[in-house]
């Protein structure tokens, strides 16, 4: 558990570089650091290729930093093995992708239920129905992703991310694949749900309007957060 008054996320001196196809390495993060309080929302902006998604991948435990330390809710991610990261991600984090990444063979409801089932947590019908209602898809619960619009798919993805009641929601360009109006609707939904569930959210985005709705904003330049 987070010690009293400690931030939910504490990132310090984070370094990450990728090997280049020919030779050498491309430094993406060069000592980035920040912290985020429980219930706060943080927007990370920056140019394409600036390392925004790398940051979110490291926070989600999908990749490992070369150096530095990430602590979420008192748990040090950088000290965990892959199995530990998987368990932590499944139990405490929700991720929303730009491309939705729903499983095509599962219905909207089944996609939402999946993280709970993977955790072997009880899936109460009422809770799933409530989630579907919150994202406005009660009528589409049996539909497959191919039968849903882009905005509806993203709603399902948000509901799936919230199903486990995570401490932190990580959103990678959540409106990047949607038209302006739908993007705005999705943003409204995201912020409303985050506020209602009293969780924290880190959003990586190019969308200034979305960024400005967050309580904190950081700009990633040359591997450093400003």
């Amino acid at each position, binding site marked *: 558990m987070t010690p009293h008054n400690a931030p939910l996320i504490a990132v310090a001196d984070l370094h990450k570089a*990728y090997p280049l*196809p020919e030779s050498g390495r*491309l430094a*993406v993060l060069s000592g980035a650091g920040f912290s985020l309080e429980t219930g706060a929302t943080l927007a990370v902006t920056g140019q*394409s*290729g600036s*390392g*925004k*998604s*790398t940051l*979110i*991948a490291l926070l*989600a435990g*999908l*990749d490992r930093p070369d150096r530095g330390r990430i602590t979420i809710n008192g748990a040090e991610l950088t000290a965990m093995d*892959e*199995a530990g990261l*998987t*368990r932590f*991600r*499944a*139990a405490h984090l929700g*991720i929303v*992708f*730009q*491309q939705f*990444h*729903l*499983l*095509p*063979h*599962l219905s909207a409801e*089944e996609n939402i*239920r*999946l*993280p709970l*089932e*993977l*955790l072997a947590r009880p899936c109460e019908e009422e809770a799933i129905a409530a989630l579907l209602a919150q994202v406005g898809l009660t009528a589409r619960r049996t539909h497959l992703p191919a039968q849903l619009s882009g905005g509806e798919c993203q709603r399902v993805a948000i509901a*799936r991310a919230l199903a486990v009641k995570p401490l932190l929601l990580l959103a*990678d*360009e959540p409106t*990047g694949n949607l038209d302006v109006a739908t993007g705005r609707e999705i943003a409204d939904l995201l912020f409303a749900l985050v506020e209602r569930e009293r969780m924290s959210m880190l959003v990586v985005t190019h969308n200034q309007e979305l960024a400005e709705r967050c309580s904190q904003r950081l700009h990633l330049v040359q591997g450093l957060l400003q």
Partner: protein
Amino acid sequence: MNPLVRLGWRDLTRNRRFSLLFIVNLALGLTGLLLTGSFSASLDRHLATHLKEIVTGDLILQATRPLTERELDISRTVAGPGSRFSRQVSFYTMVRAGGVSKLAQIVAIDDAYPLYGGFRSAGHPLDQAAAELQLEPRVLMSRETARSFGLAPGDTLAIGEARFAVAPLFDHEPGGDFTSLTLAPKIYLGLPHLDRSGLIRFGSRVNYKHFIRLPDAVDGAAVAARLAAGLEPLAKTPEIRMSTPVDVNRRMGRVIGYFNSFLSLTAMVSLALAGLAAAYLFREHLLTKMHEIAVLLSLGASRRQCLLLAMAQSALLGLIAASAALVLAWLLLPLFAGLFSGLVPAGLDVPLDQSTVALALLVGALGSPLFCLPGVLRILTVRPLLLLQEQAAALPEPHQGRGRTVAALAPALILLLLLTLGLSQSPLQGFVFTAGLAGLIALFSLAATLLFLGCRRWSAATAHLTRRLVWRNLYRNRRAGTAVFVALATALLLVNLIPQIEKGLTAEIGQPEGMELPDLFLIDIQEEQGQPLLRFFQEEDALLSTLSPMVQGRIVSINGQPFARWRQQHPTGDDRGLRRTEFNFSSRVRLDASETVIAGPELPTVPWQAEANQPFALSLEQEFSKRLQVGIGDRMVVDIQGIEMEGRIVNLRQVRWNSFQPNFFMLVQPGVLDDAPKTYLASVSRVEKTRKDALVNRLTAAFPNISVLDVTGTVGQMVQLAGRLTLSLRFLAGLAMATGLVTVVAIARQEALRREQEINLLRVLGAGRNTIRTLLILEFAFLAAAAALAALFLSTLCSFGISWLLFDRLWQFQWQSGVVLLLAATLACSLTALAAAEAVIRRTPVTLLH
């Protein structure tokens, strides 16, 4: 239901075409295994349950002379009270019925025969008719034999100087439970009437058998050992040979084992090809699922769970494939067993064998995940961070190390090796087959690699758009292309190998190169009949040739060592015919065209003089010399008609046994056999087909003791036998070909799906559907033609090698089947690929806009 299990199941049901192709492919591969396994198990079971009926006794004593009273007394004493004895005398002779004279095997039996089994007609025993043989001059024969002589019950026939009436006909005889293939049909008569025929005289090749039925509780092997010890002090020439059902079982089991093992190994080719295709199919399917696996990983599923899911999917598909194979094999088994009718017991029941079914299910459930393992392990390379926007562009494609891929192939190869070892007759055979198959696949893969490198060059060199696209596509998709090439080439090699060998074999049997087959082969010619026989054939305007004396003798010692000890000290692993010490000796002044001296000088033409105190010159057939492990200069003491003489090997001969001329393992210098009583063999040629039957009738009338073998008929039987055997192999090769075509369907469909975007783009840019079809046809036609050419080249080499090693170099180039296969494979492959990709080609290019 576990969410991953549900996901896996839904994935398989939603991707029906993939699942169906996977199942059909593996089912075809497993069907061959089920067919051959069930067939061989049925044969083994039949042999085990009918062994005593096949042997018709617990112990058989046989010799080419009647057993003495002393020998029979010892046999009765050793067998003990409660044992039953039966006697049989058999020989080949000409039988006349109406206007027909034919070679038949006369079997004279006593009233105790058979000790096990019996004669039956339509399921009813013919005990009464069999008993009457002892009382009346009657004969028992099968319906088929009666038909060939044009006889019916009540008709009469002549055997030697006596006439016999035909008793009711049988359709099942004692000991006739295994195969209906014989040199001549059997005719049974009662022993009391045998002398009336006047056919048993000096030099007649007669076989005397005594069957013993022991009381149930008595150990047959122990009695056989005591009997052998009891008879040994009386050792008399010709020697008595003793056999038990165990010996017969071992001998027959070995022959059947070779045959089954050959069939099973052919079926293994289908399974290996199916495994190859399964591995490709599953890998390609998984590649399309990498994104979903990444999502699962990002949601908290572990890699182990995902690996298990994929393995469980492949196991489930394998199990369904095995079940489908069971149904297919059940449907095909009667047809498959029918291919062997006449070669195996009539009415042999061939159900699906339980242990083979269990094996097929195991291979399906366990083998399928092993075949798919290299593809499944790609899950370890899935990186869920690719789901994030910037990462997809920043990171290289996930790549599985070559070392891991090779290591992942090992379990499947071990499974194939274990299966092959289990199915083959010997570990060496299993290893050679697996290594050969692996080598073949490696060779074809190398050929495909070179071909695709050529495609890259040709694409750079050609300005023609269609051709350039074809070459480029072939090079770009070289991994899939290699799988198609290997699968097709391996299957085609198998398909073409069979007619190549068959053609050489049958052509050489029917008309040996550089030789003319005789029309008739004469046996049991008495010494005084030589000149009259020559005159007879001169008058008939036919040619009697290679009149060869034949004397039975015994090898006493080799280089001073008793023969038995020599064999113990010089084991060869190939002891065919060496259990006995008796052999036929002959002599000739000039070698026949069918034999050539390959080492040492010719035998001297000067007659050997016993008084000279010098060893006589001896010529050995080369394979026989290898088995005896003797060579030029070695000395052998032989006992010919009770006189021991020493000979020295002066040359080795190569004999073309398929010439149907009188040939022998051992030829001695002229003069050695002069004083020995002997019979002669000869061949007759220049007999027109239309007058052959009449000539045989006149010959039989003039020389009733001479047996005449119709060479043309025997050759026809052998060709028919070769045809039957190759038909069964073709059947299995057809399965391999079907597996190869399923691979083509799978790969063509996968390639079309993979290239969907490219196809759509070409269409948007103005290419018509027919242009796309032409591209596809050209690609697969080229691949198939190249694979077929490689297969034809290699199958020709292999068939030559096999013929050289196994069939005494009987080989002929068979170009017709090659051309047909080349055209058929090219056409089938192109059309199959087109059919598989048609759904993608027909889709609207508007999907590009989504």
